[in-house]
């Protein structure tokens, strides 16, 4: 199967502005029903614009056709296997879309009086309670809009926690394998990043960690970690790591990008973490939308709780015979403050709560179990045949929900870079794994199949990799010039950066 079967997928890209013709339109607006006062009588002329923005002029049928045709130039999870490491591309249940679209959710104004938004606040409270149980940390703020936003929140919480104790600390530790957002968040929060080395087994290098702590003892604000780490391996030293950081007076931050490996099996709170963020668009099935929306709620321990963002959803017990009520608590004197407008990405909360209700305790545990089973099975399949030789697993042990291969032998022996393999996979109808991450593995491919894939899909993917490697043994040029069947072929990214064209020029 190839992507570009239909001619329209290979047609020259034409933007909606290029389809515009003066005088066409789609919208018919209601009459104002108010006096037709000249605009200049209501707003001074110097504040008005001379010409309306040059938006496209196009009728509804052609708008629909334009975006439908564009949609067919996308590959998506509903169409095929998407083993993008660290992204948890699991099925997006359509039930969740349906319940999020109910008017009681979709048309509820965020500034509605809490007494008239009890259902929404209760839903948020229930989701908070569920996430607290899953993460093993008692207090939750749903406010952060994404994982990186949760990281920033966690670091600002750390700062506030230390400031409250009269301490000023300047450094945040993060493994060299961490997600790029970790160090970026550290800088935004006004800290300096200190890298911690990774050991032979892919875990935190304990000697290096001790040395870093020794060196910067009272300057260590926090250690940011994900466990399982970005190599898909569970760090068995986590209790000792937690003890060391806590002894140095720092907080332990958990990047929840990899939570899908451990739901119902172990909990960040029990490992000793103080602050975690949970990506609702990863483990909790919110669709990725081509790059958002998501949500990155944080769960924290007792000592961090006073500093959580405001407002917080609270539950108040009713007087005799009355049920509980829910409210927004703005009176939080030690709070770090707001991280964004209103209460967070409520539409995402509805979907994720629907997902948690659907699966329940057993289903969540089974999701993680199957995610880990699928990852280990695919790893085993890729250890056979040519893949085993050319694409060895970076750390040869059981993995959690994802694993990392190294394309180094493939590159030296066949002249095929990881990028070439990724591009050739497109011709086979697969989304490639994450490539060139983590940075410490040469020619890395990071594979995360998720629990919602069938054994047949995993087998087909392994077979495709095998076929590409076999093909490369006879003719590596095929993969080096791939893809062939996509709406466009390899694109000149250097040109796009050197001579940026970031909008349509309009006459």
């Amino acid at each position, binding site marked *: 199967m190839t992507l570009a079967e239909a001619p329209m997928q290979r047609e*020259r890209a034409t933007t909606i502005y290029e389809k515009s013709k003066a005088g066409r339109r789609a919208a018919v607006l209601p009459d104002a029903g108010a006096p037709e006062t000249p605009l200049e009588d209501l707003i001074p002329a110097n504040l008005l614009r001379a010409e309306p923005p040059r938006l496209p002029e196009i009728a509804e049928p052609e708008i629909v056709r334009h975006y439908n045709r564009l949609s067919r130039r996308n590959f998506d999870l509903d169409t095929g296997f998407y083993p993008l490491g660290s992204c948890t591309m699991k099925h997006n249940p359509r039930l969740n879309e349906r319940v999020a679209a109910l008017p009681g959710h979709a048309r509820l104004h965020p500034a509605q009086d809490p007494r008239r938004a009890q259902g929404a606040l209760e839903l948020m409270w229930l989701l908070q309670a569920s996430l607290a149980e899953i993460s093993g940390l008692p207090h939750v703020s749903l406010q952060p809009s994404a994982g990186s936003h949760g990281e920033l929140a966690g670091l600002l919480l750390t700062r506030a926690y230390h400031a409250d104790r009269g301490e000023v600390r300047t450094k945040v530790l993060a493994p060299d394998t961490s997600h790029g957002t970790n160090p970026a968040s550290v800088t935004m929060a006004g800290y300096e990043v200190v890298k911690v080395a990774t050991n032979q087994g892919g875990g935190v290098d304990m000697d290096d960690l001790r040395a870093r702590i020794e060196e910067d003892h009272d300057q260590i604000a926090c250690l940011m970690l994900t466990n399982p780490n970005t190599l898909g391996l569970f760090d068995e030293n986590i209790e000792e790591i937690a003890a060391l950081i806590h002894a140095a007076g720092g907080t332990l931050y958990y990047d929840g990008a990899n939570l899908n490996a451990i739901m119902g099996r172990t909990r960040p709170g029990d490992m000793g973490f103080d602050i975690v963020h949970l990506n609702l668009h990863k483990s909790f099935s919110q669709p990725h939308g081509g790059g958002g929306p998501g949500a990155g709620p944080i769960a924290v321990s007792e000592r961090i709780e006073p500093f959580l963002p405001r407002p917080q959803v609270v539950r108040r017990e009713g007087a005799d015979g009355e049920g509980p009520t829910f409210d927004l608590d703005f009176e939080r004197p030690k709070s770090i403050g707001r991280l964004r407008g209103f209460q967070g990405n409520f539409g995402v909360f509805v979907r994720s709560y629907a997902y948690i209700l659907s699966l329940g305790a057993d289903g969540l545990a089974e999701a993680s179990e199957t995610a880990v089973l699928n990852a280990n099975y695919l790893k085993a399949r890729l250890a056979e045949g040519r893949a085993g030789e050319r694409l060895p697993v970076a750390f040869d042990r059981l993995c959690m929900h994802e694993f990392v291969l190294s394309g180094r032998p493939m590159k030296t022996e066949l002249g095929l870079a990881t990028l070439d393999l990724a591009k050739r996979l497109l011709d086979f109808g697969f989304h490639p794994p994450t490539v060139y991450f983590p940075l410490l593995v040469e020619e890395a491919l990071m594979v995360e199949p998720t629990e919602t894939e069938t054994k047949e899909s995993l087998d087909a993917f392994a077979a495709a990799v095998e076929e590409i490697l076999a093909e490369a043994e006879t003719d590596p040029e095929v993969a080096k010039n791939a893809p062939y069947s996509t709406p466009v072929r390899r694109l000149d990214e250097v040109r796009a950066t050197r001579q940026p064209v970031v909008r349509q020029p309009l006459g």
Partner: protein
Amino acid sequence: MTRYTSATDGDRAEMLAAIGVRSIDDLFEQIPGPLRLGRPLELPAGMSEAEVFERLAALAGRNADAERQVCFVGAGMYDHYVPAIVDAITSRSEFLTPYTPYQPEISQGGLQVMFEFQTAMSELTGLPVSNAGLYEGPSSVASAGYLAMGATKRRKFVVSRGVHPHSRETLATYSAGFGTEVVEVGLAGGVTDAAALVAAVDGETAAVILQSPNFLGAVEDVEALGAAAKEHGALLVVACDPMTLGILKPPGECGADIALGEGQPLGNRLDFGGPSFGFFCATEAQIRRMPGRIAGETVDVDGRRGFVLSLQTREQHIRREKATNNICTAQALNALGAMVHLAWLGREGFRELGELLVRRTAYARERLAAVEGVELLHDAPVVREFAVRLDAPVDQVLDRVAERGIAAGYALGREYPEYDDGLLVAITERRTVAQIDALAEAVEAAIAASRGAKLSDSESKAPQGAVA
């Protein structure tokens, strides 16, 4: 087996054999014993699809949404009509379910949408460079602060009190990390106090941050206010309501270096506050300091036109601690909704909608100002929202009006104690003249009732008007 997994017992056995372990538990051996949960999560058992639907529908039924209560509440998010084609297009799997377009060859649809969206936002704001979207409005203001700090190497923000309280508070939250100082400039006559602004801006100022229309609905003279920023080499940052930019002079023509805002009015539902998107536009000079994703046009090896994520060397996955921002979310689906809505409105429709809002709002403002016990909080020009003062406790009036199925507006008291008698009223194309008349009558009755209650010194409790 959950309904979203497929592994049968047979599959499991085969897969475990291929892995070389006996059981699923063996796969979790790497978790040290003391850390294993060893009990089921304390959550309810899974439910059928029908049960989940009913449970969530019951929760939704306890909210007074804009279908049950005529909504005059705005304060940054507005009950606009979202055309049907927006839902039809944004619910397509091909837009709903992909990840960020890291593989451009199979993501041309999403990337081209970003490019079209950037073009639209650039047109609206009058600035040449737009990103593909940020989380939402207030955090975009904070991101502008971070950009300005990097661009000027200065550490002070001068912010008008007319900027959305959530934006000011978010900027303050982020500033605790940035190590920046936030200086607030007050309002006079509903708009930013120009003399106070001039006095506050100096050679240490990284950015002057304004909002127009401001939180009280007033259109600011951005050009005049911005002169102070220019004089001291600070960036001029303007938060704006995109729905007003069909008629208002674009920030780019008023000297803004950055124009940004909450995108919800364009093609996004209220959703109790999110998800929506933030837009962020700037001058060419700032292109390499921009936060977030940016799509750019290029060609493929065959010379075919295509789109990619451009200028990625700004971003966290390349630059790590030196990135211009930590954000990686573009709210792509929400930005798609905006693009479809804007295409549907079109050049003429977008301007007409702006005019409609101005005229209906003028009608509503006049209608309410004529009510006994209501006066205008300011008489500055407005587009779609205005502020009044009530001669009765605002909460009581809101409760009484709610009994008639109307959400009258946003009480200003929490965030503006100086206007604790203030009410902010928002108009969209969905708010008909008949509804505006009903609002005025309800407010009149509510004020009269409050005054009556006060006169008779009764201890009547404020009615709740709650939805059961």
